[in-house]
């Protein structure tokens, strides 16, 4: 059973529409738009503006104030928060940890997911069973990831430290989550465990849509396995991979729960990423204005990265057509 849906590109008869980006143009378009259609779309648009756009704008405003969690009033301090942040070593340490955590997680998840998908695509027996087993981590709620792994890695009763000690690999039980030398690599491994299934499932779906004839033709032309992979397979799945990587970078970079529940950002600040730093600043130190400034910087950084990533995706799309 394949889930392949062949997409036929509809020829554009009318060419690109003239763009009217002015407010007046928008109004005239709204006036001409289907009223019933507007009624369908409007409730969601109101919700998105009210629940996403307005809070983000007010976050930007709070980032310019000294708002505290304990007071209602605040004063505008303009860019003071940002000035404090860029001279703060803790901020930069959280920034670097965020980058390391995101890059390591995504590279690991992508490689493992790709490898699993390629294997699954070729395997016939038990492929259904593998698929079901291999998506299990993805279904774990963050809270259970946190406690489940803490239990498995517990320094006294945990399965893994005890196993390592009894095998003679470690001299005495240590939880890898409490050891500053290993904590980062441990949370990275857990996040790869958690995220690889998503890559696997989506890459597998994309692999199923590749026409088999292309491989046969390549085989006749004497292409070796690597050439087949890079010229046919990779070319067909790179858009899916590109989109997945963008979405997951954003998700992993923003993620708060996983690290908060696994380590709380510790030991010390070994695993304190920007979202955890913002949480500590806002709810630990009650400095909501400063926390807003951190999250605004976080968003600016993500928008910048997404801009670059989408430019790459557009480039590939043009090259494909």
């Amino acid at each position, binding site marked *: 059973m394949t889930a392949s*849906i062949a*997409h036929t590109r509809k020829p554009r008869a009318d060419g690109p529409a003239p763009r009217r980006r002015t407010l007046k143009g928008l109004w005239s378009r709204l006036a001409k738009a289907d009223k019933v*259609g*507007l*009624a*369908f*779309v409007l*409730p*969601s648009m109101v919700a998105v503006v009210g*629940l*996403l756009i*307005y*809070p*983000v704008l*007010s*976050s930007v405003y*709070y980032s310019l104030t000294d708002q505290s969690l304990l007071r209602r009033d605040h004063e505008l301090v303009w860019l003071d928060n940002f000035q404090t942040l860029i001279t703060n070593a803790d901020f930069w340490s959280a920034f670097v940890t965020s980058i390391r955590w995101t890059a390591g997680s995504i590279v690991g998840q992508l490689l*493992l997911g790709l490898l*699993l998908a390629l*294997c699954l695509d070729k*395997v016939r027996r038990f492929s259904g069973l*593998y698929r079901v087993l*291999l*998506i*299990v981590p*993805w*279904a*774990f*709620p963050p*809270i*259970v990831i946190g*406690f*489940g792994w803490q*239990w*498995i890695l*517990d320094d006294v009763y*945990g*399965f893994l430290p005890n*196993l390592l000690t009894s095998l003679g690999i470690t001299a005495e039980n240590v939880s890898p989550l409490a050891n500053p030398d290993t904590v980062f690599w441990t949370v990275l491994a857990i996040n790869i465990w958690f995220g690889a299934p998503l890559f696997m499932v989506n890459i597998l*779906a*994309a692999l199923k*849509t590749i026409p088999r004839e292309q491989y046969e033709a390549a085989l006749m032309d004497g292409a070796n396995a690597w050439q087949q992979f890079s010229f046919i397979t990779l070319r067909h799945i790179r858009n*899916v991979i590109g*989109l997945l990587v963008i*979405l997951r970078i954003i998700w992993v970079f*923003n993620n*708060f*729960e996983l690290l*908060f*529940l696994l380590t709380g950002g510790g030991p010390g600040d070994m695993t304190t990423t920007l*979202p955890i730093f*913002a949480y500590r600043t806002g*709810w630990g130190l009650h400095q*909501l204005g400063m*926390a*807003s400034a951190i*999250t605004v910087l976080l*968003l600016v950084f*993500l928008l910048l990265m997404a801009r670059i990533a*989408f430019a790459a995706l557009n480039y590939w799309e043009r090259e494909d057509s």
Partner: protein
Amino acid sequence: MSTRNPATLAATTARHVFLIIVSIAFVFPLVWILVSSFTPSGELTADPLSVLPSEATIEHYRTVIVDLGFLTNLRNSVLISLASTAITIVLATLAAHGVVRFFPRVGRRLTRILIATYMFPPILLAVPYATIMIQLNLINTYASLILAYLSFTLPYAIWMLVGFYRTVPLEIEESAAVDGATKLRIFLKISTPIVAPGIAATAVYTFINCFNEFLYALLFISSTERMPVAVALYSITGAEVLDWGAMMAASALVVVPSVVFFMAIQKYIAGGLTEGAGK
């Protein structure tokens, strides 16, 4: 494959070995949580390496349900997630059908905008939400979480459903329109039944995401009575001595339904994404 030479056989075997090892590693935590939740407390602490307990016990489940009142928390989670899912599905089906039928050109750009809202870190929204909830006196209410959850369920649901509604053939709707059906009737009686499986998958996914949410629940709910399971579980860690058996029983109660649901709907989530990327 009809011709089986040693090289392809070796490759197939290597693939199976790799898949088996990774499968075991991926499923191990689930198995270990389940085993621990049925292991008597004494054995949990006596020999951490014994894989199977000498006898299964439900003492941990009793502790969780009777002593910790976990059922109240489960009910809170279910109510909050159901309400969020219902609101999300009503709004998102309307919007997805509306975009596909009435504003097809906007559709592509809208998909990008909705992906962009993915970029808003939950912690970014948490600050203004916290002040809004305080001002509206919504702290410790279900409403605070239902509102906050819409911020991430709605964009994703619209995104998924636009993909599903695009598959409805225009001709069916047009012939219904010729027969005199109103636009609302076409939406309710024609296109929505066709995409019902997609809506079901979206609803399940939305429900699980709300059920699993932690950050907003941690920030907006402090009364034990109103806590969803995630925060209730977290609050147990404040106890002097952590009862790992009970923790694992509670974890099993939360993770098993999620795993079952995810297995059922995973192909829809995958399909939506590849379709979007193929465009």
